């Protein structure tokens, strides 16, 4: 059932990614020998042979990620447990926040979204801003944002009640989580190591999120697995 995305070499440098050919080859090998199908990212939730995670209500590194279902900007529902068998990235997001703008304005977030989704990772951008607060978007606004910024998540999910945000204790935008193919939280924290809103700091920061995804794809341990996220506060309802 699981489709491990195994690297053919040990990662030594966190900086650069697989060549596209290697990534596609791994993807092809992964699909060969499938026993049961995994859902694609655009279909509505299908019944999938996954462990029930209904009792998990907090995100704890090393444990099963709390399951949730949220609509995307096109009205399609996505359930986290349907992505069991794939690496999942959760990106808490607020398009107005200068720490989010730091990554989007220079294309750094979009590049990671594109690169990792092409390698089979599921990337879910989540907006937990309450209606009336800064950063809240309607479905239409969300679609326009995605197009305008050439963002490439698997889906942009709308969580205006903040239920999923609170379950994950999402504090800031950005706040990143990585969930491994077994459904466990393996990273919770900052996107990188330099707390600033200056895009020039991206290159010299330790890329925590990138490194975490690479580690999961390579089957190695994520280190660090928990860091202090930085950014603007998530705008929950009071």
């Amino acid at each position: 059932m699981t489709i491990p995305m195994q690297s053919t070499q040990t990662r030594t440098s966190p900086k650069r990614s697989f060549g596209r050919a290697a990534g596609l080859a791994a993807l092809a090998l992964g699909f060969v020998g499938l026993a049961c199908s995994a859902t694609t990212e655009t279909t509505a939730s299908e019944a999938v042979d996954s462990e029930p995670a209904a009792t998990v209500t907090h995100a704890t590194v090393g444990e099963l990620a709390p399951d949730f279902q949220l609509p995307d900007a096109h009205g399609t529902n996505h359930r986290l447990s349907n992505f069991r068998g794939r690496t999942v990235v959760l990106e808490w997001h607020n398009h107005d926040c200068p720490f989010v703008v730091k990554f989007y304005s220079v294309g750094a977030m979009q590049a990671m979204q594109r690169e990792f989704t092409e390698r089979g990772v599921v990337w879910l951008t989540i907006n937990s801003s309450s209606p009336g607060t800064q950063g809240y978007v309607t479905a239409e606004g969300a679609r326009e944002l995605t197009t305008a910024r050439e963002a490439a998540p698997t889906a942009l999910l709308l969580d205006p009640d903040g239920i999923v945000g609170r379950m994950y204790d999402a504090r800031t935008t950005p706040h990143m989580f990585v969930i491994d193919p077994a459904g466990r939280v393996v990273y919770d924290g900052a996107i990188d190591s330099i707390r600033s809103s200056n895009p020039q700091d991206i290159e010299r920061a330790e890329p925590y999120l990138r490194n975490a995804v690479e580690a999961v794809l390579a089957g190695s341990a994520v280190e660090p697995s928990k860091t202090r996220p930085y950014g603007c506060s998530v705008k929950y309802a009071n």
Partner: protein
Amino acid sequence: MALSPCTAAPWALLACLALGASQESPSGTTASEVSSARGDGVWGNPAAQDLRAAPLVRARPVAAAEEIHPGEPLLLGVRLEIAPDWHVYWENPGDSGMPPRVDWELPDGVEIEGPFWPYPRRYAAGPLVSLGYSRAVTLGFRLRLSPEAAAGLEGVRLTLAAKVSWLACHDEKGCVPGESQVRWSAALGRGAVDPAAELPPELVEWERGLPRGDHGWEFALEGDPAPARGELNLLLRAPKALAEGERPLDFFPREEGRFQLASPPRFEPIAVDGPGEVWRMRMRLERGVEAPERVSGVLLIGVAPGQPPTAVLDLDTHPPAGADGTPNGDRESPLPEKP
């Protein structure tokens, strides 16, 4: 990777044009008072655009004296005046945000210590808590000019410059980073410093808010009895009984990410100890985080949360040993010795 928002949907065209018209140099090189973030149009942050004409934060220097005496410390503050309903952050910003920074350009022979932070207040929004300041705050620094460098400055004023940068946030409007340059200069002073010289009001206010190390309180982790799961207990021993109605009101930890700020500490009196008294402080740890071996932070003593505190204490369970053996002996107070 080059991105072209101007190829986006038609609705974004206006925003795209706005973006093109207001291209800024990369953050860190502008001297403007307002946001240097990419805050226009399709990239968001309309708050930055609206408020471009009125800066959210103004920074200016405020010194204890107009002269600097070689070898003698001088208090020099950087005052941040903040637009209504916006706030900036303390050294531990809390669940989000970022503390302000002052990056000094110092000539040879000039040393500066700080910032010395006044105590913050809590800003709660939903389940999240920030620690910071609104309306105004002065960040204190202690400046020393060596006699050798002073000799080299014979007849010339000492001039210092700093880049001040901050993040200003509003509960509804979001956050806007900003920066500005401040410059300060002073003539060289002759003879002794006048100990009776009055501080300007901004520094009087700063001094009142400054955590004091010279308080004689003891502060220790309480291991026995063991605290409840997910909690940490500390003991506070006051050298003298508190006044009628006075009690510990709040504690702000310096360490980020250790304690749940959404659950303020709980205080309970547990014993009278000679002329003094002992209190227990219960803190909730962040989920999944271990108890620390050392706790450092700022304790407020007072009569009621809404009123100014009667004492602001700098506490550390493991203070660096001072030459005189006092707690926090090494964390020198920026204030002159009281006679």
